[in-house]
């Protein structure tokens, strides 16, 4: 059957399986991705079916994982790398930023870098330090990288395959607290373009733009606002580099109000860039300044405080009210 109801985790697993089946050059690499199937089981069963040469358990060395993936890509492979948790990507940040991102440009286009780096990210699972961060801005800021994040099972399935097919390096952020959310996946569908935004809920009074784990919060906020007679449009950005500014602009020209929501700190975040660009593009359409809801300029707090730190329904609705009050 073409349409299946899957968790995001299973959709990612199916997507990896399909990629491994379709292209013998695709490799999975990372810590514990083999027998264990990854700490979130995203690679569950893949080593059993595709062998240790294709699903590779690596030493515990993130720079080594990404650096060797670059070498494998130079040899013609398409490595899909798993970084176990968001906060663990930084030992590999040098290789990603100074090497992976620039190889195509500095070779004048001779070298392609089809490397996908999967990172379970963001908070909400009660984890310890370094296990709940949202570093997407740090990657979106780097020319040469593409940065995406699915919010639902269908996108998880399709966007991962599109990322693997891309000849550019893609940082693929997986919203770990949504891994067990179920959704319909049509494995025979023609998917949206990888970097296109998607209207997750249509509305006319205000646009909420979000990605990854915050899309669900925004949909809940839109439902709550609807009970108060407010028509909220929710835009799932899906891609942080490039950002689909045309899609946001189209929505804002309709609703005339925009609130950008993400878990990452607000300061210099994806929301800042969107606020600036949409102000440039839609100055005469806007009825209110673009508002941002997100994390604070503080280290991600201990788990007992994360509910206060993370944007929830009330904070999003508060921003909606503030925008509508202009």
């Amino acid at each position: 059957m073409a349409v299946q109801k899957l968790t995001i985790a299973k959709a990612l697993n199916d997507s990896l399986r399909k990629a491994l089946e379709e292209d013998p050059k695709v490799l999975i690499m990372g810590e514990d991705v083999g027998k264990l199937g990854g700490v979130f089981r995203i690679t569950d069963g893949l080593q059993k079916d595709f062998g240790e040469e294709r699903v590779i358990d690596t030493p515990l060395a993130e720079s080594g994982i990404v650096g060797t993936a670059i070498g494998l890509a130079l040899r013609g492979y398409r490595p899909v790398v798993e970084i176990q948790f968001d906060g663990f990507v930084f030992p590999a940040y040098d290789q990603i930023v100074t090497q992976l991102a620039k190889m195509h440009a500095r070779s004048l286009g001779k070298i392609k870098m089809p490397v996908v780096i999967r990172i379970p990210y963001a908070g909400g699972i009660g984890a310890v330090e370094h296990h709940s961060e949202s570093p997407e801005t740090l990657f979106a800021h780097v020319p040469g990288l593409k940065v995406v994040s699915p919010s639902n099972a269908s996108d998880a399935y399709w966007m991962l395959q599109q990322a693997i097919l891309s000849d550019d390096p893609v940082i693929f952020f997986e919203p770990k607290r949504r891994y067990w959310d179920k959704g319909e996946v049509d494995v025979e569908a023609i998917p949206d373009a990888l970097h296109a935004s998607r209207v997750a809920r249509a509305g006319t009074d205000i646009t909420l733009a979000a990605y990854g784990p915050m899309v669900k919060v925004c949909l809940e906020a839109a439902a709550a606002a609807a009970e108060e007679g407010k028509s909220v449009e929710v835009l799932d950005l899906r891609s942080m580099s490039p950002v689909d500014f045309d899609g946001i602009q189209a929505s804002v020209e309709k609703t005339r109000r925009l609130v950008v929501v993400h878990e990452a700190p607000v300061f210099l975040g994806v929301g800042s860039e969107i606020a600036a660009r949409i102000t440039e593009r839609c100055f005469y359409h806007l009825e209110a300044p673009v508002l941002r809801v997100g994390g604070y300029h503080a280290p991600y707090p201990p788990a007992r405080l994360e509910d206060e730190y993370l944007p929830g329904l009330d904070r999003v609705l508060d921003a909606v009210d503030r925008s509508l009050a202009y």
Partner: protein
Amino acid sequence: MTVESTAARKPRRSGTKRPAGAASAAKPAAATAKTHDAEPQLVQLLTPEGVRVDVAENPDVAEFAPFVADITTDDLRGLYRDMVMTRRFDGEATALQRQGELGLWASLLGQEAAQIGSGRALRDDDYVFPTYREHGVAWCRGVDPTNLLGMFRGVNHGGWDPTTNNFHLYTIVIGSQTLHATGYAMGVAKDGADSAVIAYFGDGASSQGDVAEAFTFSAVYNSPVVFFCQNNQWAISEPTERQMRVPLYQRAQGFGFPGVRVDGNDVLACLAVTRWALERARRGEGPTLVEAFTYRMGAHTTSDDPTKYRRDEETAAWEAKDPILRLKAHLLATGGADEAYFAELEVESEALGKRVREVVRSMPDPDTMAIFENVYADGHALVDEERAQFAAYLASFEGGE
């Protein structure tokens, strides 16, 4: 000269593959130097005076000497020519930097033997991952030396197609390329090919985590990679004492593969040891660390001043070990070449210098819009937008003022 090795090759998947741990059976006698302060024990086949080392009297080199048993007088002249041409090219580039034609230059002066010896050990299907100083290796790979100058002049970040000569782009970040080499070698093994990979780096880079991770990965996956460290004694102004407390080649032992220290100013020994290491890789015996003990006679780059951080006596002591002079002495002493040959080579190297000068000075600046080229393989909306904005901005000047 030939780059084929004397040792028989076996398929990588022949079943004769030894486990990584067993590789220590090939541990060279040279790996017996006792302390860091002791006179380093080197694999040496040609003394600083240009005399061939008697293998019978020096069992330490017996394992490696057979790897250059096929080298003829013609081959020796070829190695000599390579070193002379490389030095001439390097000298010209240094001069061009002083004249303002290059923004920076990283000279290889003094390291010609390490680079030519190792570079000539390679087969065409081997793959090289250099730092930014491997001008001699590039020469061996057939990369036009003028192509090396683009990044130093500031017209590009590379300047050659790495796949044409299996010579990767120069890597500036210290040690990063050792991981690329390891990953590439993992791919070679997956492909079942019997080619090998060589990663160049310096003594300073050996302090980098990436180099340690490359050692770990290559050992764990038994990858066909040779780590060729040119220990030129100085990492900009930092001496090796600031990088390590035990001789560098001994580090390999802790990772489970052999390390060997070779006289980096002896082109013959560098050739032999690199061939030996490459053969191990081809046979599926995994990585090797070669420490070429040499000396950077000039500055780290044209930006630093070595007189601030090292003694003249030290430099003078190394001058006596000059790699080119020792092979010249050998060729003269054995009748392998006469003064006419050297004079002829002088003319040829001057012609190279002239060509380099002319090419650099006529190197065009890249097109302005090249800023936006090849940022992404599949395109990117933001780049497209900014390209269009910049083009419109440039166009706004037309007919203006």
